[in-house]
């Protein structure tokens, strides 16, 4: 009797302290999102209108899809930004893919061929990134270089003018709907399911996290880190390409320079995802929530008539809040 009563106690005492943040923290993340959305809904009657919500989802799709790719890179490369995984070329590759598709369809290629061409170009960029990183270059510098190359190629192909994105297929991408949802949103949800399940519950995902958190240990355990790291850049570039296609379809044109504008938002979305994870790591679900949050915030500010300059400041402060949270993790780990 006494031993049976004592066992659970010793068991509890011996349990290792739970890693990561206190449990309330991840709920605080969701609570903040909910509070902001409710505040926007309360202050602007047009916010919770179905048409506006569809617009928010549409805006979120581009950031979320490219963010998924960046999240995979960060997961596989480790979240230290200078030496770990980072892909600065996502924005430029998205812009390049959109431009390639627009120029190809202008030249009379069928939509399927233009989309395939755009994705092939994106995959080529991802291959360059992956190969250079696997060879031992810092991801930050590699993707900085490919960002410059992709941005320059965009200018060369488009001649630095807006290329209209015409054709029934692209209009369907913009205006069409599947099961009552805009096409971009459906694409986002499908990719969310694929990447999220892949990273969360397949051996590929578990190994990717292992490689990112301790490449040496992963290697000792028989995983080939290079394979996973290379693939992460390929995936990131492909998802960036898809995001670029959707963005161009939404704008009805491939706009040169749009890549640099969305880069910071994609980085913000991917890094913000840590707030929504109990272990404070980058996750796909968190990326989706962060993308929805950023899109809702931007949209809500516009509805309220807040000058667009403040949106940038709000995003900057947001990142800082996120990072302060991450810094708390760093300190509690060090103790």
């Amino acid at each position, binding site marked *: 009797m006494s031993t049976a009563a004592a066992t659970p106690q010793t068991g509890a005492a011996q349990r290792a302290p739970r890693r990561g943040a206190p449990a309330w923290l991840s709920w605080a993340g969701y609570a903040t999102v909910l509070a902001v959305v409710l505040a926007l809904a309360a202050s602007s009657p047009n916010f919770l209108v179905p048409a506006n919500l569809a617009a928010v989802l549409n805006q979120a799709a581009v950031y979320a899809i490219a963010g998924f790719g960046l999240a995979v890179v960060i997961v596989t490369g480790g979240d230290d930004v200078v030496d770990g995984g980072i892909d600065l070329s996502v924005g430029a590759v998205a812009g390049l893919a959109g431009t390639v598709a627009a120029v190809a369809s202008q030249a009379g290629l069928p939509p399927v061929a233009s989309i395939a061409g755009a994705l092939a170009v994106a995959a080529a960029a991802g291959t360059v990134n992956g190969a250079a990183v696997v060879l031992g270059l*810092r991801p930050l510098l590699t993707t*900085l*270089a490919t960002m410059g190359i992709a941005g*320059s190629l965009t200018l060369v192909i488009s001649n630095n003018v807006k290329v209209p994105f015409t054709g029934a297929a692209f209009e369907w991408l913009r205006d069409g709907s599947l099961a009552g949802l805009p096409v971009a949103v459906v694409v986002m949800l499908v990719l969310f399911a694929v990447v999220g399940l892949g990273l969360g519950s397949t051996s590929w995902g578990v190994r990717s996290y292992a490689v990112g958190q*301790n490449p040496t240990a992963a290697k000792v355990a028989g995983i080939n880190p290079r394979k996973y790291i290379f693939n992460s850049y390929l995936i990131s570039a492909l998802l960036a390409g898809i995001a670029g296609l959707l963005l161009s379809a939404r704008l009805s044109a491939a706009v040169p320079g749009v890549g640099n504008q969305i880069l910071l938002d994609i980085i913000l979305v991917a890094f913000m995802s840590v707030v929504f994870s109990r272990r404070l790591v980058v996750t796909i679900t968190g990326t989706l929530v962060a993308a929805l949050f950023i899109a809702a915030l931007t949209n809500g500010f516009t509805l309220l008539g807040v000058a667009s300059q403040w949106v*940038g*400041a709000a995003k900057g402060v947001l990142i*800082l809040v996120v990072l302060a949270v991450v810094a708390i993790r760093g300190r509690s780990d060090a103790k």
Partner: protein
Amino acid sequence: MTATATRNRPGLRPAPRAADILPRLIAPLVLAAIMLAFSVLTPTFLTGDNLLAVLNQTAILALVAAGMTVVVRSGGIDLSVGVALDLAALAAAAAIAERYVPWVAVVVGLAFGLAVGLVNAFLIVVLRIPPFLATLSVWFIGTSVQQLLTGGGAPIYLVRSQVPEGFALWGNGYLLGVPFPVVAAVLVAGVVYLALDGTRWGRELTVTGEQPGASRISGKRVGALGASAYVLAAGVAALAGVVLASRTYAFIPASGQLYVMDAIGAVFIGATLSKYGRVSVPGTMVGVLIFALLANGMNLAGLSFFWQGLARGLALLLVLLLGVVLARQRTSRVRPPATATTAVPARKG
């Protein structure tokens, strides 16, 4: 392990072999190849006037990159130097537009830039936010601040005839026949070089960058050293901003960010010159010259501006890849595991 340990210890090695030196010569060789190629392609490239013009155009990038070198040496990175540059240019141009005397405009400009450095230092040293993300958010906020201060991003144009000479000199003056921006860049680069490689501060900063834990244990004031790097970088960028405002007689919002990526590229091209992959001011200047001559030569050869990003990206990839591949044949260094935010910077290409 012993082989690697001996190899990494200076002084114990015999005279360097050619194979050891080759990876470190790539950047200078690329620079020489660019000069050779363009002097064959365009007759005007290798003239004194053109090269002086190149140096004059490069001065601002050289200043920004010299500051970036300090930050990278301290183990960090600063994406917000463009904001420091912009705010300094904005403050200086606005002060001149309001008819303040030149020295006030310059001091106000430098103060605005230094403020950005102080914010960075606070975020990174006190709040311990990783440098990349801290300076990224300062970039966001700084861009917003610029737009708010200029009423939505309207440029400030100064009337050329009304700009006092004491201010116009900063960007357009000559000292012994050399443009003032070049003089400033050479002076700043020299001072930063001496400070980094010849003073106790520089040695402590280097140690802190490469082994933060060890230098904290050995009683170095790690926080103060890191903070000084960010403030110094912002101060140098602010000087570049004043020069830019004076040269263009204007402030154009978000013009500073254009220099950030080039500066980072130049700094890391420069790192390939060092045996330890350590960044240094002379190496950075080689990188800056590669970018500058590439841009100028392509202009002279009549290639459109659109191609320049491509050429820069390819040059950056080429130099770094060659450096990594050649160095890999020489040694195989153990890569430290990338831990979370406090990772020791692994010196790679």
